[in-house]
């Protein structure tokens, strides 16, 4: 187990360095000069030079990158070119919003997809199975932006005077809402996230229904399931201990990777519902050529994905001895 862990951590460090180098290089290949953009209208070359020096952009690229890595080792992600805010602060204030969306969404899609997938596998070609597959088709085909707009129009706007309605958009802090905030607390937090969670989970839920359905159907035909039944095990015991345990192994793996993928998908949901999360922030930074913020989010997301994958790998190694031996 220990060599496996060391190997995975070394790969994680290499992946992390590669990601930051590529992000850094892409930024310098783009013909945008943050100093000129920050300088404003009609800057003289002397003005641009002064701003460049102020932003530390007058150094060679490799030196800027080295300085960045040194700062990173000290836990400093730098300062935004645009509003000069600490990137640590920006990440610290936006990451909880994205985490709320992603983890809440993940719980929703698992709660929906596992029962639906199992039901479809146990009742193939039934009405319920066909309804499930229709949902799968819809979830994979419909874009989150469209889903979000439709949901908020119906449940937020059209039904606003009915008992069953949701906020059209917006976010509430679960803990210590800021001064002047019109809402706050865990209940309002969850209430404001119902539609974002629903929007966010549709695609993943659709994919997971298919995954669970296929795995369960395949596992049901395995010899050990037949053996378990032949030995007289009850159907529920067969399902839970033999079928589900084996069918959900790939789900655990995919979930680790999808949480990382979901960080990217969060951009759409955050934009539609005005959630001040990482996705929304990185989109703004991209439009403003704000390298420190882009890098900060990339670093954060990379670390998050690496950690999730590491945890999944370790879990998988614990669950399945064949992985350890490999």
């Amino acid at each position, binding site marked *: 187990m220990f060599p496996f862990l060391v190997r995975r951590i070394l790969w994680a460090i290499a992946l992390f360095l590669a990601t930051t180098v590529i992000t850094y290089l892409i930024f310098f290949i783009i*013909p945008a*000069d943050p100093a000129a953009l920050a300088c404003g209208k*009609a800057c003289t070359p002397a003005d641009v030079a002064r701003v460049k020096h102020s932003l530390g952009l007058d150094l060679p690229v490799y030196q800027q990158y080295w300085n960045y890595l040194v700062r990173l080792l000290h836990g400093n992600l730098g300062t935004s070119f645009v*509003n000069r805010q600490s990137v640590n602060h920006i990440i610290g204030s936006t990451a909880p919003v994205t985490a709320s969306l992603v983890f809440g969404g993940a719980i929703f899609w698992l709660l929906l997809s596992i029962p639906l997938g199992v039901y479809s596998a146990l009742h193939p070609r039934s009405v319920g199975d066909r309804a499930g597959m229709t949902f799968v088709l819809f979830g994979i085909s419909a874009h989150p932006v469209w889903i979000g707009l439709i949901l908020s129009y119906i449940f937020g706007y059209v039904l606003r005077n009915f008992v069953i309605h949701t906020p059209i*958009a917006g976010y509430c802090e679960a803990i210590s809402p800021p001064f002047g905030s*019109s809402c706050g607390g865990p209940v309002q937090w969850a209430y404001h996230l119902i539609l974002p969670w629903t929007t966010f989970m549709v695609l993943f839920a659709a994919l997971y229904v298919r995954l669970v359905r296929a795995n369960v159907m395949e596992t049901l035909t395995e010899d050990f399931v037949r053996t378990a039944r032949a030995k007289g095990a009850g159907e529920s015991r067969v399902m839970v201990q033999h079928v589900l345990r084996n069918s959900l192994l790939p789900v655990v793996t995919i979930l680790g990777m999808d949480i990382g993928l979901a960080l990217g998908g969060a951009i759409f949901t955050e934009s539609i519902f005005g959630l001040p999360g990482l996705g929304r922030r990185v989109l703004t930074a991209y439009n403003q050529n704000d390298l420190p913020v882009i890098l900060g989010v990339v670093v954060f997301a990379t670390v998050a994905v690496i950690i999730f994958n590491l945890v999944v790998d370790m879990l998988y190694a614990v669950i399945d001895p064949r992985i350890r031996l490999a």
Partner: protein
Amino acid sequence: MRKKFVLPVVLATIGALLLVASAFAGVSGSTGTNGAVAKKGGTLKVNLSNNDFEFTDPGLAYDTLSWSMLYTTNINLVNYPEKNGQEGGQLYPEGATAFPLVSKDGKTYTFTVRPGLKFSDGTAVTAAAYKRAIERNISPQMGSPVGVNIQFQKVVAGGEDFLAGKTQSISGLSANGQKLTIKLVKPNATLVSIMAMQWFGAIKPNTPYNKGGVVTHPSAGPYYIKSWDVGKSLVEVRNPYYKGTRPANPDQIVFTANTDSDQTLLQVKAGQVDVDAAGPPPTANAALGAQYGINKKQFYVGPTTCILYFALNTSRAPFSNIAARKAAEWGLDRPAITRTLGKYAGKRSDQILVPGVPGFVDYHLYAIKGADVAKAKKIGGSALKGTVTVMHSGSPASIAAGQITAYNLKQMGFDTKDKLVPGSIYYKTLGTKGLDFDIARAGWCADYYDPFDFINVNFDGRSIQDANNVNFAYYNNATLNAAMDKAANLAGAARSKAYAALDLSIMKNYAPWVPYSSLNDVFFTSARVSNWVYSSYFGEPDFNALAVG
């Protein structure tokens, strides 16, 4: 000698006239579209779709959104009143008791700060507050955009040495009690307008230099910033020590950042949000206009200080030829290009200055109602040949404008080549001398209400450098440069007249731009908003004047 004597007299006369006007402005308070007395109280909820404040520090903020917010918290020496239309563009002395006294040589301005003004923490506002604002704007420890954008360090005596870190104070600046004296390097008729910019609002004299800017700071205007959660929300509350005449109608103003414009439209309709500072989605304009009417209730359209145009690259053929440029003036379809912005979003134009700016006279020189291809061909003659590179950004409106322009140019006899440059690097690319383009879509919004900021800034060919240009036509003409210098030294009515003539002359004789639209801003408010007051200068409503009580 005569010139030295005339300038201060003219300025003093204008000052007196503006003072009289301001007296009326002051006593009448805020009057919105309906003229009724505004209700006080409540919380004004403003969404900032796809946008956020860059800074709340007056020394660093440089975007219209931040400025429109700071307008509610700042007291400037001179300011624009909360009035709709042309009246809203007339300066009046706010933090000063009167317009400044100007020395005979036009180089020394003395302001007297109005006694009794207080910051939101109860401390008095003195001349030192304005001195500190100027110091913070120029200090190398701040990295403020002021120095680099309007080159203010070159305006005030000792500014350049201070910016270079050679001196600890600005030699041309002194504050004594309520007296603020500003000595200039040379006479500058735009100084009073410059002082109305939000960079120059009173700030506590002990406010530190800080490259990241101060976030919440005491301010002397009708409101102060209570909290700012970057990327999320900003909350303003009334300044309890403000005793001036400016309106402070809502109890508090809450700005929510980075919202979605489609969702905000629904929120405004549902009364959950009062207004979107970015306006409704352009595709909604027509339906909203039909439902609510224009400038009657809830749906408002107002002019800005922005002009949209196509820059003709005069540094190479075909548009180095005046005949080709004039042909473009007749051959481009201004109404069609304006329509790409959405309904009500712009007013057709064929000149540089926009309504409201001193010197604006509504000329109709060229094809304002649509392309006149026959006339364009006749004027252009043999100059209308070859391939024209049409440059534009990737926004839907810009792509559509580029397509219409290419179509018009083909009608005139040119071949065309499309050049799309991403919006984030568009102006930097366009500002690089020697770039491969012939005609490029561009726009200009004035930093301050003076024709200098349209004419001289955009057409003084001596300012053309290798990169970061704003003279996108790359036009350099010694005669025109001299005429612009002359106009810049004038004041009052003579200045307006000179710039009106320059506007006409540039478009008639040199035609380096094809202006096509003076930009409007469109807003949709919730049903509870009353007392609508819109500032053309900021392109935003005067938030402190809106009533939701």
